[in-house]
C-alpha cells in the first residue's frame, strides 16, 4: 500500500541513488588515477559559493578580532567610556596599520620566496577553509582563467601547502597535505631516506615506509623527493617530531609537524611551471 501510494517518490529516490552511485564511482576512479576532468556543476557550485565564503570569511575574521579586542573590555566603569572610545578608535586605526604592515611583511616574504625558487608561480589569496571529518581543504581566489589546472602544487613561504584538486573559472580547491587523503613522496634531508608523508588532519602527518634500520631522529627535516611527478623536489614539508621503533612492525612509526601553519594560511603560491622562463 505504502509503495503504491508513494511510487513516484520511490522512483525519484531510486534515480537519485543511481546518480549518486555513478558520480561516486566515476570520481573515485578519477581520484585513484589522478586524471584531470572538468565538472560543470562542480564548477558552478564553487563559483556560486565563492561570494558567500568570502563574506563569511571576512565576517568570522572580524568577529574573532572583535572578540579578542573588545569583549574583555566589557565592565569598565562609566567614567572611562569616553577614554575607552578614543582608545577603541585608536586601536582600530592601529589595527588597520598593523594589518597593512603584517600584510606587507607577508607579501614581501612570499615575494622573496617566489624569487628564490626556479619556478613560475601565481599568487592567490585563501578565501575559505572547508572541512569535513577527514577533509582539509582551502579555497583560493584564482582559477582556470588565471592559468591554474588540477594537480598543480601549492606552497607558502613556510613550505608545501598541498595541490589543486578542483579548478573552477575563478576559484580553486586545494587539498592540504594534512588531509587524511593526501600522500606526498618525501625524503629526510639529512639521511636522504625516502618515504611517504600522509596527512593526519590537525595532528599533522605521518612519515610512512621508513624501515627500522634507517637513521631517523627528532628534528630531522622532511622535504619533497620529487618522485611521483606531482611535487618538485626540495620543497620544505616539516620536521620529525616523534620516532618510535616497534619490534612487531617492519617500519618506523614517525610523526611529522608541518612547517605551514594551516590555521593561519592567507596567501599562497601556485606553482604553474617547473622552470622560470628566460627573459
Amino acid at each position, binding site marked *: 500500500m*505504502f509503495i503504491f*501510494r*508513494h511510487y*513516484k*517518490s*520511490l522512483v*525519484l*529516490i531510486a534515480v*537519485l*541513488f543511481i*546518480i*549518486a*552511485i*555513478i*558520480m*561516486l*564511482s*566515476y*570520481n*573515485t576512479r578519477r*581520484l*585513484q588515477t589522478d586524471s584531470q576532468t572538468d*565538472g560543470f*556543476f*562542480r564548477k558552478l*557550485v*564553487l563559483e*556560486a*559559493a565563492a561570494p*558567500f*565564503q568570502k563574506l*563569511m*570569511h571576512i*565576517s*568570522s575574521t572580524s*568577529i*574573532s578580532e572583535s572578540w579578542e579586542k573588545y569583549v574583555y573590555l566589557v565592565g569598565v566603569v562609566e567614567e572611562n567610556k569616553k577614554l575607552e572610545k578614543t582608545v577603541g578608535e585608536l586601536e582600530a586605526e592601529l589595527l588597520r596599520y598593523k594589518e597593512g604592515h603584517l600584510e606587507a611583511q607577508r607579501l614581501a616574504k612570499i615575494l622573496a620566496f617566489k624569487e628564490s625558487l626556479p619556478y613560475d608561480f601565481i599568487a592567490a589569496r585563501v578565501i*575559505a*577553509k*572547508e*572541512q*569535513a*571529518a*577527514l*577533509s582539509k*581543504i582551502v*579555497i583560493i581566489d584564482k582559477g582556470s582563467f588565471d592559468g591554474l589546472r588540477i594537480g598543480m602544487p601549492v606552497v607558502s613561504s613556510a613550505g608545501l601547502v598541498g595541490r589543486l*584538486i*578542483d579548478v573552477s573559472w575563478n576559484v580553486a580547491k586545494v*587539498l592540504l597535505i594534512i*588531509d*587524511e*587523503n593526501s600522500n606526498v613522496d618525501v625524503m629526510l634531508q639529512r639521511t636522504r631516506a625516502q618515504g611517504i608523508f600522509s596527512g*593526519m*588532519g*590537525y*595532528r599533522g602527518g605521518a612519515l610512512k615506509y621508513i624501515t627500522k634500520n634507517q637513521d631517523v631522529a627528532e628534528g630531522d627535516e622532511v622535504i619533497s623527493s620529487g618522485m611521483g611527478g606531482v611535487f618538485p623536489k626540495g620543497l620544505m614539508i616539516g620536521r620529525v617530531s616523534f620516532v618510535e621503533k616497534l619490534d612487531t612492525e617492519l617500519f618506523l612509526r614517525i610523526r611529522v609537524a608541518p612547517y605551514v601553519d594551516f*590555521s593561519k594560511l592567507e596567501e599562497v603560491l601556485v606553482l604553474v611551471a617547473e622552470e622560470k622562463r628566460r627573459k
Partner: protein
Amino acid sequence: MAYYLLLPVLSILVVALQTTIADIIFSGRLVIEISLIAVIYAGFRLDLFKGSILAFVFGFVFDCLVSSVIGLFTLIYLIIFVASYAVSLITDTQKLRLVALWGFVFALVEEALVILFYNLILRFDAMASIPFVFLPQAMVIGLFTPVFFYLMRRLEVYIYGKPLHRLERGGDSRISAEI
C-alpha cells in the same frame, strides 16, 4: 516551486555557514554539520519527494565544497534521509531527547559509512580518527540537532500558525515545504 529554486542557494549558504561557525567555535577541529541535521529534519518532517531532493542537493553541495571525493556525501545523505524517514514512521519525532539521540546515531552512521568507504575503496585506514574526530563530532551533532529542530518548530509556528502534529504513520500530514 519556490522550494526547489531556493534549495540550491540555501544549501550553499548552510554549508558555507557551518564551516565558518566551526572555525569560530572549534578552531576548525570539528564541524557542526548543519547540512546533516537538515537532512535528518527532512527525513523526520518532509515528504519523500521533497526530502529526497533536499538530501541530494545538500549532499552534492557538501561534496563540491568540502569533500575530495564527489558523490560520497550525496550518497550518504540519501541513505541517511531514507533511514531517518523510516525511523520517523516508528518514533515520536516531537520529543527532543529522541531527536538528539537520533542525531547522534545518524552522525555515527555517516561517519561509519565514510570510514567504510575510505577503508574498502581507497584502502586507507581511517580508524585512528574515531576518538579524535568522529566521536566528538557525533556528540556535537547530537547536541545541536534538538536546537535545530526547536528553531524549525518556531519557524513552523511562524509560518503555519502552530506546530504541525502528525497524525500519521504513513506520512500523510507531513509538513509541506512550499513557502
